[in-house]
C-alpha cells in the first residue's frame, strides 16, 4: 500500500499557492453571490405578478361592466341575450349550466373515482396496481379537446339511441365525459389519502375478524375522509373551469332550464363564444366577458381554498 504512495515531489503542484493566487478573483464571485438572490427573487415575483395581473385585469374590466349593467341585474337575471337589440345580461343561465354540468360530472367521477381508489389502495396487489395506475394517468393526460370530440361525436349519438328526446347538443353528454376526465384526479388523490392510513389501523381491524370491505368502510374511509372530500372539492373546481368539452358538446343555448337533455351554456363556454366572436373592444358584450370570467375565477378560487383548508385543517394525526 505504502510503496505506491511516494508522491513525486517535482511534479507536485502547489495547490495552496494556486489558491492564494486565485483569491483576487473571489471578489467578483462575492459580488455575484450578493446579486443572485435578488435576481432569483425577481424571477419568483413573476408568479405573484401573474396573480396580480389576473385580478387587476378582471376587476377593472368587471368594474367597467357594472357601470353599464347593474350588479343586481347581472347576478339575479335569468335572461342572457347579449346580441339582441335590447341586450340582457343575467348570469344565472350560465351559473345554472355550470352547476348542472358539474353535478353530472361529479355523479360520474365521485362514485367511480372513490371505488377506483378503494380498489387500488385496499384490494389490488402491488403488481396490478403498478399496471393500472399508469394507465389511469394516461386517462388524465388526454387533452380536453379530445374529450370534447369524444363527447360530441361518440357519447351524444350513443345517448340519443337510449334517450330519444336528447338534443344534438345537450348538457348531459359533456357532463358525463367531464366526469370521466375527472375520475383519475379523484382516484389518485383519494388513493393517496387512503394509502397514508397506517397499516396498523388496517391490521387492528382485520385481526378482529373484519372483512376487507368492513375495514374499508369503517376504518379506512373515515380515517381518510378529509383527503377524499378535498379531492371531491378539487374535482368540482376542475369541472367548473373545464371549457372545451362543454363548448363543443353543449352548444350555446342560454336558456335557464333544468332539463339536462337540452343545450345549456356554462360560464367557460360563454367566454369562448364571446371572445371567438370578435366582440369589439369597449362594447358591453366585451366587458361581460370579464364579469363572467371574474365570477368563474371567484368560484374556482373558493373551491380551491376550501379544498386546501379541509386537507390541512382536518389532517389526521396518526
Amino acid at each position: 500500500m505504502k510503496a505506491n504512495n511516494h508522491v513525486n515531489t517535482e511534479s507536485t503542484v502547489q495547490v495552496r499557492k494556486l489558491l492564494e493566487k486565485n483569491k483576487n478573483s473571489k471578489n467578483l464571485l462575492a459580488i455575484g453571490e450578493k446579486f443572485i438572490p435578488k435576481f432569483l427573487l425577481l424571477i419568483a415575483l413573476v408568479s405573484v405578478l401573474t396573480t396580480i395581473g389576473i385580478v387587476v385585469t378582471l376587476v377593472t374590466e368587471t368594474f367597467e361592466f357594472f357601470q353599464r349593467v347593474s350588479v343586481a341585474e347581472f347576478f339575479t337575471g335569468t335572461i342572457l341575450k347579449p346580441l339582441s337589440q335590447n341586450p340582457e345580461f343575467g348570469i344565472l343561465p350560465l351559473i345554472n349550466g355550470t352547476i348542472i354540468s358539474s353535478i353530472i360530472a361529479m355523479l360520474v367521477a365521485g362514485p367511480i373515482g372513490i371505488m377506483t381508489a378503494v380498489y387500488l389502495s385496499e384490494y389490488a396487489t402491488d403488481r396490478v396496481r403498478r399496471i393500472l395506475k399508469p394507465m389511469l394517468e394516461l386517462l388524465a393526460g388526454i387533452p380536453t379537446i379530445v374529450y370534447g370530440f369524444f363527447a360530441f361525436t361518440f357519447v351524444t349519438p350513443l345517448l340519443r339511441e337510449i334517450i330519444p328526446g336528447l338534443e344534438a347538443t345537450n348538457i348531459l353528454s359533456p357532463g358525463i365525459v367531464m366526469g370521466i376526465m375527472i375520475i383519475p384526479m379523484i382516484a389518485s388523490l383519494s388513493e393517496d389519502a387512503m394509502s397514508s392510513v397506517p397499516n396498523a389501523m388496517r391490521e387492528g381491524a382485520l385481526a378482529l375478524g373484519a372483512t376487507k370491505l368492513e375495514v374499508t368502510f369503517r376504518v379506512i374511509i373515515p380515517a381518510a375522509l378529509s383527503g377524499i372530500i378535498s379531492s371531491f372539492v378539487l374535482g368540482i373546481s376542475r369541472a367548473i373551469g373545464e371549457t372545451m368539452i362543454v363548448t363543443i358538446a353543449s352548444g350555446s343555448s342560454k336558456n335557464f332550464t333544468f332539463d339536462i337533455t337540452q343545450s345549456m351554456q356554462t360560464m367557460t363556454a360563454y367566454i369562448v363564444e364571446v371572445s371567438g366572436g370578435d366582440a369589439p373592444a369597449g362594447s358591453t358584450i366585451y366587458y361581460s366577458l370579464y364579469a363572467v370570467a371574474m365570477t368563474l375565477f371567484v368560484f374556482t378560487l373558493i373551491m380551491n381554498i376550501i379544498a386546501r383548508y379541509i386537507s390541512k385543517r382536518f389532517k389526521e394525526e396518526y
Partner: protein
Amino acid sequence: MKYIDAEKVKNKMGTRLILNNILKSVFLLATLFGLIVLAVLIIRVLTEGISYIDLNFLTGKLSTNPDRAGIMGAILGTLWLMAVVVPVTMFLGIGTAIYNELYASKGRFQQIIQTNIANLAGVPSIVYGILGMTIFVRALDFGNIVLAGGLTMSLLILPIVIVSSQEAIRAVPQHFSEASYGLGATKWQTVKNIILPAALPGILTGTILALSRAIGETAPLVVLGIPALLLPFPGGIFDKFTVLPMQIYYWTIDSSLVDEYAYLASATIIVLLVMLFLLNSVAIIIRNKFQQRY
C-alpha cells in the same frame, strides 16, 4: 354468560364474505370503467382517422376540401409555440423553485409566494386566456402571434413546473451540499454545480409533463383569437399561427356541416396523441435513466 354467540357470528360470516367479494368485483369494474372508456376512445379515433393520415395530410396546407386538407401549419405552430414555452417556463420555473427552496427565508413572504403558486395552479386555463388576450394581444399589441400564445401558455404551466422543480430540488440529499460547503464553495457554486445537476432529471421530467399539458391545451388559445383557417405556415415566433388542438376544435364543431371533418379531427387527434406519447416516453426514459443511486 357469553356476550358473543359464536353460532350467530359463524352464520353471518358467510354473507359478510360474499358481500366483500361482490363489492371487490364492483370496485374492480369501476377501476376498469375509466380504462374501457380510454380504449373505446382510442379505438374510435384510430378507426376513423388512420386512413386519413398520409404524407399529404402531414405536410399539406389547410383546406376546406377534406381530401386536400393538411396539418403541417398546425404542427409547425405547435412546435413554434413550444419554442417559446420551453425556455420561458424553464427559466422562470427553475429560477422560482431555486429561490423558494434554497434562498427564501422561511417566513411570511415565502408562505405568500407558495400559497400564491398553489392558487395559480387552480385557476381555470380559460382565465389565463383572458389574461393573455388583455395583456399580450391587446395591451402590448402583439396580436395573436406565436409569442403571445407562448407567453400565455408559459404562465399557465408555470405553477406546475415550479412545484415539480421544487420537489426535485428538495429530494437532493442535504449531505451533497454539506460536502460542497465543506470544501469552501459558496452558496451559488453549490447550487449550480451540485444541487441543480442532481435535481435536473426530476426537473426535466416535471417540465416535460407540464409541456404536454401546454401542447394539448385549447381554451386559452381560443380566447386569444387564434384563427380557424390559416394558410401560410408560421416561420417564427412573430407570425400568426394555429396549433393542433385548435384544428381539432374547428373540425369537430364543423363536423355537423361536413361529415368528413370528423375524420380529419380524428386524424389530427392521432397526430396529437402520438406527439404527447413521445414526449411522455422521453420523460419516463429520463426518469429511469438518471434515477440516482445515492
